[in-house]
C-alpha cells in the first residue's frame, strides 16, 4: 500500500495563507495587451475559441515533453512530489517534503519504477528542497526558467501526485495563471492538494518556474516556491545545507528587514538596538553585496548571515543616495521576541 500523503501539506496552511493573501491587495496593474500578432497566451485574456485552442495545443505539446520528469517522493511518514532537472538525477522538491538533509527517500517514476534518492539541502524560509537519485543513470529532465522570466499574468501548469502515487491515474495536470509573485513565493490559481507538495509549476513554455509549497483555504490561490529561490542558493542547497529556523535562531544576526529590488535588497526597516542600527544602516539603503557575494534574494541574505556565528564580521556593500558605501559589521545574537 502506498503511504498516505496527508502529512505533506502542513495543517496550518489556512492560517499561513491568510497572512500571505492579505498582502495580495487588488491592483489593476496587469497591462493592456491587445496586439493581434502576440500568441494567445500573451494576451490579457483569450479573445476567441481559437485562442483557447492555441493555449491548449501549447500546453499539450509541453506536457508531453515534461510529464515523465515528475516523480512521487516517498518516505515512511508521507509522500510528496518532485521534478527532475538534470540528467544525473537532481530533483527539485519542497523543504517540507525532504524534512532534513541526508535522508534516504524513494522516488517513484510515472511508469512505477522506484529509485532511491538522498535528500540534499534547501530552505525552510522559501520551502525549497533538493534530492539526488543515488543510482547512476541518464534521466529525462525538465528545463528550468531563468530568474525573473515568469511574471504575474503568465499562463502556467502544475503537475504532481496529489494524494500520492497512482499508477493508473498518473501525474495530475492543473492549468492556471500566475496571480502574484513576490520574494520567494509565486501564487497561482492552479488547484493543489496534499501530495502535490514539491511538484513542479511550469511556464507555458514548459520550464520549471516554481515548486508547489502550500495550499490556501480557497482552492484558487495556492503557493509555490519560486525558481529564483533555487537559482539564488543553488550551491548551498546542493551542498546538503538546509537553511532552518533553528539555524536562523542560532546563527549571526543583523537586524534589517529587506525587500527584493532589481539590483539588490532595499532595507525597509532597521530593528532598533541591533548590529545594523549600530553600523548606521538606514531605511532605504540598497544592499548590493555581502562579503563580495551579490545579494539577489532576501533569502540569500538570511542564509549568508545566519550561517556565520554571532560575533563574526561581515562586509556589506550598499548604495545610499547614489553613493557606494562599504561597512564592516559585527554580527550579533538574535533576540527572541516575546
Amino acid at each position, binding site marked *: 500500500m502506498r503511504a498516505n500523503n496527508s502529512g505533506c501539506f502542513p495543517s496550518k496552511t489556512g492560517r*499561513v495563507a491568510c497572512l500571505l493573501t492579505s498582502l495580495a491587495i487588488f491592483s489593476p496593474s*496587469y497591462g493592456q495587451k491587445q496586439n493581434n500578432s502576440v500568441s494567445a497566451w500573451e494576451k490579457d485574456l483569450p479573445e476567441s475559441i481559437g485562442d483557447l485552442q492555441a493555449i491548449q495545443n501549447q500546453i499539450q505539446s509541453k506536457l508531453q515533453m515534461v510529464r515523465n520528469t515528475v516523480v512521487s517522493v516517498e518516505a515512511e511518514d508521507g509522500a510528496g512530489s518532485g521534478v527532475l532537472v538534470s540528467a544525473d538525477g537532481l530533483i527539485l522538491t519542497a523543504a517540507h517534503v525532504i524534512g532534513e538533509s541526508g535522508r534516504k527517500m524513494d522516488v517513484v517514476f510515472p511508469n512505477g519504477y522506484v529509485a532511491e534518492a538522498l535528500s540534499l539541502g534547501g530552505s525552510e524560509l522559501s520551502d525549497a528542497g533538493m534530492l539526488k537519485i543515488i543510482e547512476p543513470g541518464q534521466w529525462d529532465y525538465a528545463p528550468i526558467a531563468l530568474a525573473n522570466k515568469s511574471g504575474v499574468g503568465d499562463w502556467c501548469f502544475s503537475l504532481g501526485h496529489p494524494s500520492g502515487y497512482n499508477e493508473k491515474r*498518473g501525474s*495530475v495536470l492543473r492549468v492556471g495563471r*500566475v496571480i502574484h509573485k513576490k520574494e520567494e513565493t509565486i501564487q497561482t490559481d492552479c*488547484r493543489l*492538494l496534499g501530495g502535490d507538495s514539491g511538484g513542479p509549476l511550469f511556464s507555458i513554455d514548459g520550464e520549471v518556474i516554481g515548486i508547489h509549497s502550500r*495550499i490556501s483555504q480557497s482552492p484558487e490561490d495556492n503557493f509555490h516556491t519560486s525558481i529564483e529561490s533555487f537559482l539564488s542558493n543553488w550551491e548551498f542547497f546542493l551542498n546538503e545545507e538546509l537553511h532552518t529556523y533553528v539555524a536562523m535562531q542560532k546563527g549571526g544576526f543583523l537586524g534589517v528587514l529587506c*525587500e527584493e529590488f532589481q539590483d539588490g535588497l532595499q532595507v525597509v526597516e532597521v530593528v532598533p538596538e541591533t548590529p545594523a542600527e549600530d553600523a548606521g544602516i538606514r531605511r532605504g539603503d540598497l544592499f548590493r553585496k555581502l562579503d563580495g557575494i551579490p545579494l539577489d534574494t532576501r533569502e540569500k541574505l538570511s542564509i549568508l548571515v545566519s550561517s556565520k556565528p554571532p560575533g563574526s564580521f561581515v562586509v556589506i556593500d550598499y548604495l545610499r543616495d547614489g553613493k557606494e558605501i562599504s561597512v564592516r559589521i559585527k554580527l550579533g545574537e538574535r533576540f527572541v521576541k516575546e
Partner: protein
Amino acid sequence: MKLVFLLLSFLIGRVSLVGESLKPADALAPEYRLNGPSFGEVLGTAKEHLLQSVVGLFRNEKLIAHGVVVHPQGLLLSKASSSVGAGMIQSSQGQTFPIRIRKRDEIKDLALWQITSSPPLWRAVTWKGEHNQTQSGSWVISASPSLEELKFGVVSATSRPIGREGGVMGVLLEESNSSDLGIEVVEVLPQAAGDRAGLRVMDRILRMDGRPVKTVEYINRMLQNKDPGDLVTLLVNRKDKEILLRVTLGHRAVAFDLFNRNLLMSGPVSKRKDNFPLIIQQDLPLQKEIMGGGLFDIHGHCLGINIARVDRVTNYTLPTKVILPTLNMWLKDWP
C-alpha cells in the same frame, strides 16, 4: 508532527524574522484570472447555449444537483444518487418547473428526469461522439445556470475505470495467535458503522454472515463485495459470551476520511465517488451540487456527465461512451 512544527515556525519566521513588504504587492486582477468574472465571454454566443442546456435540480427549494437536457420534450439526465428526491428544476432563465423521475441506472449512477409541465421545446445537448479521446490538457467547461456561470478547467489525468470502495465497518482488526479465537477488534472508530452496531474493542469476531472467519483478509474480501448500507451479521465473542451484532456498513469516506486532512481541505465531496466503468478526470473548481451537469468542450459539445466531486483538485465525469448506450435505450420511449 514535524510538519506542523515547520509551518508554525514558518509563520513566526515570516512575521518576526523577515517581515513583510510595506507596499501592497501587485496581484493579477480577478477579471484576468482563469475563472474570473469575464473569462466565460471568450465563448461568445456559445455561452448562452451552454447555460440553456443545463438545469439545476432542487429538493425542498435547495439546490442538490444539476442535469443536462437530453431531449427537446424536457427530458433531463442527472447523477442518480445526488438527485434523489428532486422535485423541481430551474432553467437558465430562472423559471422553475416540476420534474418526475423516469429511469434510473444504479450501476452508472444515472437518472432520467422529465419536466412534467413543459413549455414546447428545450435545447438538448449535442453529444460528442462515442470515439472521442479526451486527452490531458484539453479544455473542459461546466455550466451552472443557477449560479449563472461557466467554469473552465482541463482534463487532468488518464481516463480509467474507478473500482469499488466497498462497505466498511470502521474498525481495526487483528488476527489472534490461534485462529479458533476469532479476529480481535483492536480499535473502533467513533460514530462509524461498527461503533453504532455496538462493536467494542477486545470483541472477537467468530463468524460473518454465518461463515467462520480466520483471517483479516477474508473479512476484508467479504466487505469489498458489499456496498455501504448493506447489512452484515457478526457472531462475536465478548468476555466468553457469544453475541450476535448486525452492522449496517458505512462509507469509507465517512469512516476514515474524517482523519484525512486532504479531505478536510476539500470541502463537501460527493457521497458516491467510486465504482464507475470509466471516468474522465478534470480539475474544474466545482461544488458537489454541480454534479449531474454536463462537461463540455470549447465547441459546446457535451463530453459527459459530471459524476463525482472527489476532492479539491479532482472531479470525475462519466464519458459519453458510457452514457449513450443507456440513454439511447431509455429514449426509445420518447420518439
